[in-house]
């Protein structure tokens, strides 16, 4: 394997790792479920995309890389649906106003 392909694969995998790290930081820093879902979707889309692109760069034009692309397509089809179901669950099980951020709500409670 040529050096260019190795370097390209390492760069793509590093970008994917960076996206996953950002999504985990977002999941821990955000205060509300919807914000956390937004941060988690970053790792679900961009993280998996760059990881699989790096692995396809290593593998080349083989049947394995086609299968990995199939995994990516399958996950991209199912991840928005599960995100929609989760947000639907949040919406239908919470009686409070969802447009208010959690910090704002805490401030209002303190003001009262």
């Amino acid at each position, binding site marked *: 394997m040529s050096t260019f392909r190795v370097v390209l694969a390492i760069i793509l995998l590093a970008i994917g790792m960076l996206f*996953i790290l950002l999504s985990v930081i977002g999941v821990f820093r955000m205060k509300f479920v919807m914000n956390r879902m937004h941060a988690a979707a970053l*790792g679900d889309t961009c993280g998996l995309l760059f990881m699989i692109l790096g692995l396809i760069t290593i593998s080349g034009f083989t049947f394995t890389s086609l299968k*990995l692309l199939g995994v990516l397509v399958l996950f991209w089809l199912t991840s928005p649906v599960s995100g929609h179901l989760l947000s*639907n669950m949040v919406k*239908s099980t919470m009686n409070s106003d969802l447009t208010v951020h959690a910090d704002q709500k805490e401030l209002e409670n303190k003001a009262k």
Partner: protein
Amino acid sequence: MDGNLEIFLKAVIIFCACISIICFVRAVIGPTIPDRLVAINMIGTQMIIIISVLTILLKEAWLADVAAVYALLSFLGVVVLTKIYIGIYRKKHAELFGEEEETDGISIQESQVNDK
């Protein structure tokens, strides 16, 4: 395969394992049930990435099929848990506030608009 690349792939696997442990911490301390489900969903993503890296590292093509099945199973888990939790919530809500309270998404939105 290049030796450096093999070491890097192992590092990626260790990184994803550490991230999934951190997500498990979020799932334990998550204040509400949707928080826990989001964290479990992220653990599923990390597992799919680990299996995909193992496909290339071990040169076993069938592990990609395992990753696809894992993606479908984690999606199925989220679907079933959300449906069950919404059902339990509606049952509790009907016990507390009577049967006339419809907890459908649209009617909740309308009731919020009426509250304002």
